[in-house]
């Protein structure tokens, strides 16, 4: 038996940690990032509704392409191309389109940075752009519609606190409207008297021919338990998660002392 086997090194399976922290926020972040964790389906939305919300093509319209299907074109002899399996959208030469979400800091179930982390672990062939209050993700059109389904149907979405906003996105850091909806200058979605949120405009603000239902807003207790943002007033305070604070301080110290080459003495 070798030294390594004796020490159990060969049997040591690496388990990804995804992120630090012991608070409920940290646990929720890890759940969303972990691709082996099955996210809870909270609502259902049809293919046509997703197409309407995105506004990139008319329902039933074919996917437009920017190049012939990969199978029909001559691919150069490249080991990387053999190694990487193309997504359905790339295989068919689809256009690159986008979806952008704005998440309220009042206990929205997902947050821009968290969204990017989760998408990078769960999706392929994406190009996310992360800002403080909004997150855009670009990818091939048919992949986008498939990814959008997960982003809207699962616990990563709340009809009141998360919304699809291609442009005029302001609302993340603002107080909520008196009906509990995130502020939207274009009022893309409305809370009906029956408590259901309906989109009346697509993500860029063009009026829809028919309203798109995205379900009822989740209650505040559920949101607090499933939020991925720290908020000292309405949710979990960052200071209450000592492990998270310790991790952030360590990263800050290493970056301050060593820049992009962090080495601990």
């Amino acid at each position, binding site marked *: 038996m070798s030294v390594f086997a004796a020490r159990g090194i060969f049997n040591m399976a690496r388990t990804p940690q995804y992120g630090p922290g012991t608070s409920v926020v940290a646990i929720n972040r890890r759940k969303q990032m972990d691709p082996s964790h099955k996210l809870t389906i909270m609502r259902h939305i049809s293919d046509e509704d997703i197409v309407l919300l995105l506004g990139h093509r008319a329902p039933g319209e074919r996917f437009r392409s920017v190049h012939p299907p990969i199978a029909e074109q001559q691919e150069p002899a490249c080991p990387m191309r053999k190694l990487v399996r193309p997504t359905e959208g790339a295989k068919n030469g689809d256009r690159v389109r986008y979806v952008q979400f704005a998440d309220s800091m009042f206990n929205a179930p997902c947050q821009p940075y968290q969204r990017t982390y989760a998408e990078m672990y769960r999706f392929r062939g994406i190009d996310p752009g992360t800002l403080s209050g909004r997150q855009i993700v670009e990818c091939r059109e048919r992949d986008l519609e498939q990814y959008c389904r997960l982003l809207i149907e699962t616990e990563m979405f709340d009809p009141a606190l998360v919304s699809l906003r291609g*442009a005029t996105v302001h609302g993340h850091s603002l107080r909520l409207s*008196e009906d509990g909806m995130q502020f939207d200058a274009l009022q893309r979605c409305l809370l009906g008297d029956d408590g259901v949120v309906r989109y009346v405009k697509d993500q*860029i603000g063009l009026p829809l021919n028919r309203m798109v239902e995205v379900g009822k807003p989740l209650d505040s207790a559920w949101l607090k338990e499933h939020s991925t943002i720290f908020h000292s007033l309405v949710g979990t305070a960052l200071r209450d998660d000592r492990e998270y604070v310790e991790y952030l301080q360590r990263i800050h110290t290493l970056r301050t002392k060593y820049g992009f080459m962090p080495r601990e003495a």
Partner: protein
Amino acid sequence: MQEAMIFPQCRIVPMRLLKPDTTKRLLNEIVGVPGICRILLNGQNIPLNVPYGPARGMKNTTNLRKKIEIAGNSVDLHVQVGTITVEIEDRAVVGKIRTICDAFFTDFSYYIQEGKFMKTSPSMVDYARYGPSADPSVIGLVDPKRKEQPAFIRMPDERICGEGDF
């Protein structure tokens, strides 16, 4: 230039952004309080047209931007109201405003701050816009670059500013 008198100010900060109808109900109660000089509504702008993106220039259909009636006067509301700053003749008026707000904000909380929230003397931009004889009642109420004038609310005769019991 006319010398502006400096009055105390207070600011009502609800925990939620107010819809036009709620703003209207609240203001109709507040404007009846004797001793209020000026009221400034602050909030997020609701654009008339879509400002950015492929839909830029299209009419922004929304129920957040509309005309509201305050004491029989029409006010064109451009914002979703977040704070209401009130200039008052005397600090005692704050108590009366607080009484109204206590009864009004039942679904969510609010707080009132006392301090200086509006400009009380003209800035250089005000001087450039209005000249040396600026009306002191306008200073601090509107952005000098805007073309719209503030709304003037005339109260019925029975309400005399600074007098009467509340």
